[in-house]
Structures are given as C-alpha cells and as structure tokens.
C-alpha cells in the first residue's frame, strides 16, 4: 500500500482579468512507505500546489488524497501531527533565534517545555546551526534559513516529510549538505516527497520520479529509466558558423542513437550516444576532416530539458515562458 496517495487532483486559479490557470490538472501521485519520491518539473508546473494540497494548506477543486489511509481533505487535523513540511520559501520567524524557532515548533506539536527545548538543542547540533542558535534569524543566509526550516519540519520524527524545492537558491556547497541530510533521513526509513527542477537532484536522491508539466504527471520511473528514455549520454557541439550545421548533423547521425537536435540559432547540435568518450573522439575526427570549426565540444548527461523535450516537444524554458504568458494580464 502506498503511504501517500493522490488521485485526480485539480486546482484552477482564475486571476482577475486573466485566463484561468490549471495549476493541477488531474494529478496522480503515490509515495511508497520508506522511499523518496520526487516531483520533477519546471517552474509553474504545479509542484508547490501539489505539496500544499497534501500538507492541508489548500483544498483542491476535485480529487482525493490520503496519507497513511487518512483522508487529507476530510480530516486535515489528523494529518498535521504525522507530517513534516519544509516549503519552497523558508518559513521561519525573523525575530526569533534559531533555537526559539525550533522550540516554538516543538511546543506547538505539544511536546511539552522540557522535551521541546531538548529537541531544539539536538537539532541545532545535528544541523550545524550553532551560529544561529542564539541570534535572531534576521540577517542569516538563505542556506542557514533553509536548514532551520528543515529542522523545523523534523522536530517530531514525522511519518512523512514534504520538501518543496529544498535546494533551490542554495550555493553548491549548501546543496551537497542538504543532499546529505535528506539521504540520511531516508536511510533511517523516513518517507519523503520532494520537488525539484533538476533531474540531477532527483537522480541523486529519489527512488521514484514523477515528471510533471501543466499540473499532470507526464512520465514516471526511476532516474535511470527516464534517462534511458531519452538516450544515455549526449554529445553537444557549438559551431562557429551556422553554415556547417548540415555537415555536422550528417556526422552526428553516424554515431548517435537519436536524431540530432539543432538549436534555434542553428549553432548548437546535440545527439544522444551509447558511449560518450568514444563517440566524441570519432565525431571530432570526422569534423576535422570536413574542416568544421568549433567553439566548443563536449559530452553531457541528459537533463530535465532532454526528458522534457522528448515528452512534450518543448523545453522547460518554453514551459516557463508559457506560464509567464498565462500569468500576464
């Protein structure tokens, strides 16, 4: 049985004087107990809306959701004691210290004064927050706030943890630290639902990935399955002149496992390949023979963009542009 289960969630926003936005458009989700499931999607795909429905913050227009068999929409008060939430933007009280923030959350979980203080102290140590322990959160970096916020979600050991874009806006070092924290949570058997815009992150952390776009799941699988669906590694070439595009596509066809993709400005050509280093060597040799001048050549792993491009025919940047257009009055 899945621990978190959502079926057919819809939520439509109708901003004044603008087209309605289908933030959720029949979203299905399931999170097995003791696993990390990721919701992967570009900005505006509906990730935050989905998390807010599951964490009792908003009521969907239709659909059902259960956590541990409890109906989220009918009995939100029974859901709140068993979940931990860290939203997209750190929800901490600026005027309280790190310690006071965590202590307050403990008291509001009704742990009692002594246990709340003890747990706050423990989390300060675990999350390396001693710097923020006795100073108001105001003035601390985004990474520090995020950690306090995540610690707040773990004041009780929740049965399921919701993390909405836990690393967006963090510097690379803080991101790695956050990954470590999340991994250690799961090694202890926690159930986690996290959202992200990065395939790499879902790949690093999640057992199961739901790719969503415009409020719907458009693909589901492990990171390997998703990457395999768009071919493994790819070779990407940046041309000095668009005149060489045809010749380049010709060469890439010989070694690629997919049809080469050409960017709008005709200067970037990409193809998926079975084995990156080998293919790159062969491609460069052939291009040299044809005197094709290159700005840049390299291998890269598939990104969310590649998955997106294959699944929807548009890139994540397009999807975002569309959302922005929809939002504009």
């Amino acid at each position, binding site marked *: 049985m899945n621990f978190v289960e959502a079926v057919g969630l819809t939520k439509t926003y109708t901003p004044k004087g603008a087209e309605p936005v289908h933030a959720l458009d029949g979203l299905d989700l399931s999170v097995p107990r003791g696993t990390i499931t990721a919701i992967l999607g570009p900005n505006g795909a509906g990730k935050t809306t989905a998390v*807010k429905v599951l*964490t*009792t*913050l*908003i*009521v969907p227009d239709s659909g059902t959701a259960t956590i541990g068999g409890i109906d989220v929409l009918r009995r939100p*008060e029974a859901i*709140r*004691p*068993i*979940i931990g*939430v860290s*939203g997209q*933007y*750190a*929800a*901490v*009280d*600026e*005027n*309280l210290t790190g310690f*006071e923030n965590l202590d*307050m*959350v403990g*008291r*509001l*979980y*009704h*742990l009692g004064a002594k*246990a709340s203080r003890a*747990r706050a102290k*423990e989390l300060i140590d*675990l999350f390396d927050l001693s710097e923020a322990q006795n100073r*108001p959160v105001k003035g601390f970096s985004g990474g520090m706030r995020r950690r306090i*916020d995540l610690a*707040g979600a*773990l*004041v*009780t*050991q929740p049965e399921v943890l919701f993390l909405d874009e836990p690393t967006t806006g963090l510097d690379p070092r803080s991101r790695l630290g956050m990954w*470590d*924290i999340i991994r*250690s*949570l799961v090694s*202890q058997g*926690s159930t986690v639902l996290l959202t992200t815009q990065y395939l790499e992150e879902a790949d690093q952390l999640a057992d199961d990935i739901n790719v969503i776009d415009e409020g719907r799941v458009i693909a589901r699988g492990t990171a390997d399955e998703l990457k395999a669906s768009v071919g493994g590694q790819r070779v990407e070439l940046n041309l000095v002149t668009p005149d060489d595009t045809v010749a380049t596509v010709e060469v890439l066809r010989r070694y690629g496992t997919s049809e080469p993709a050409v960017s709008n400005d005709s200067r970037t050509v990409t193809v998926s390949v079975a084995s990156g280093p080998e293919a790159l060597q062969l491609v460069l040799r052939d291009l040299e023979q044809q005197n094709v001048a290159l700005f840049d050549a390299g291998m890269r792993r598939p990104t969310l963009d590649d998955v997106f491009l294959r699944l929807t025919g548009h890139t994540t940047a397009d999807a975002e542009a569309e959302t922005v257009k929809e939002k504009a009055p």
Partner: protein
Amino acid sequence: MTVGAAIRTDATARPGPLSRWINDGWITTRRNLIKIKRVPDILVFTTLQPIMFVLLFTYVYAGVIDIPGSTYTEFIMAGIFAQTVVFGSTYSGSAMAQDLKDGIIDRFRTLPMSPSAVLIGRTNGDLLINSISMGVMMATGFVVGWRIRSSFLEAVGGVAILLLFAYGLSWVMAFLGMMVRSPEVINNVSFLILFPLTFISNAFVPAETLPPPLRLIAEWNPVTWLVQAARELFGNVPPGTPVGDRWVQQNPELAVLIGVVVILIIFVPLAIRRFSQVTSR
C-alpha cells in the same frame, strides 16, 4: 548523522483540547512578546508618541480651546487615550500581513495547533502594547495636571473600556491584514481611515463645537462613544456639558460594550476562518 529522535507525537499522550488551546495561545503570545523585545521601535513608538501627544495638545491648544468649568488638559486626556489605543490596534493588521508574506503562516497551518492560536497571540500582543501606552500616558497626564475625579473602580473601568475597544479593533485589523496581504497597504489604509475617525469626534474638541454635518458624523462615530465613556469614567466631563437626547449619548459605556461584543462575534469567527484557508503566494 542521525536526524531521528525517540520523540514522536503520541496521540494518547497529547494534552486535552482546552490545555492545548491555552498552550498554543501562550506560545504564540510569547512569540509576539519576544518580537516587542527585539524590535524596540514598536515600544519606543508606543511610549514616546503618546507622551508627545499629551505634551503637544496640552501646551499648544490649552490656551486656545476654552473648556468652561474645567481645563483643556483634563478634557483632552480621554481623547488622547482613545486615539492612541485605536492606532495601537493596527499592529495586528500589518503583523498578520507580514506573517503571510514571510510564509510563517504556512508553517503554523501545517502544525497540529489550534487555528485560533496565532490570532489570539497577535491580538494579545496589541493588548500588551496598548496597556503599556496607557500606563505611560496616564503617568504623563498626571505630570501635566490631569486628575482622575471619579472612584478607583470607575477609573479601572475607564482603562478597561479603552483597552477592550482596541482589542475588538485588533481582530478586525487581523482579519483585514489577511485579506489585503500587504503590510504597507494595511498601514496606509488604516491611517487614512483612523485619522479622520479619531478627529471627527469629541476626542479633541467638544462635539457641540463642530459644524453641523461633522457633528452628525461625530455623534454616530463609535470613537465619540468611547471618548465619552472614558471621560465619564475618569470623571473628566466638564460640568454643565449638555447631554444629547440620543440613547448612545446617554449610555456611551453600554454602547461601546455592545459594539465590541458585536464586533467580536462577527470578526473572531471570520478571522479564524480566513486563517484556516489562507496561504502564502
């Protein structure tokens, strides 16, 4: 690293609903007390501004406005009390809007806490600020010659009715803060509404001296009832002041009490319902 702990919210060990409600209200009140301590501007403003008002009004206007049978200082104090506590009730509006902006309301709403607790803590914060202002203003008033000319109990009633009125207004402001969502807009709008409301009243001049259309507004203005009630309870009504023939003019204390009860009956549930639905954008 081990993040887990032996602590779990054990449903059977949880306290009953009443003690949870008291706990939650206390914890959110404590949060606002810490804020008052950490952001001293609020406290400085709430103590200095009333002192300034008392001094300005008593020394600038005392010689101009003649109150037969009494002094302008004695007359004005109830007005300054009323104006100060009315403005003191607006913190709840901007604070709720700010909490919404900061996303901390989302945190509270995902915790197993009472949905009224944040609002109770917030309005308690205003009540405390206003109590401090009242103390400061009364002390300053004594220094410049204001005297309570009623019994001790009546004077306590005077303080209570001022604080109660502001408390009711705090719930209205908290509700508006969650509707408007912008602390700046809430501040500006309440300024635009409350300034005329306190000035077109009997707070600073006897209502009889206002030109007829304003006088009509003043007579129906709840701030007038409040000021009249406070003036009566402190024994500061100038002798020989005519009492109007309307019921509210004859029973300002009762009118204020009924008004506050009505406001609380309407706005407490409205604010709690709004809190239970609202989320950051």
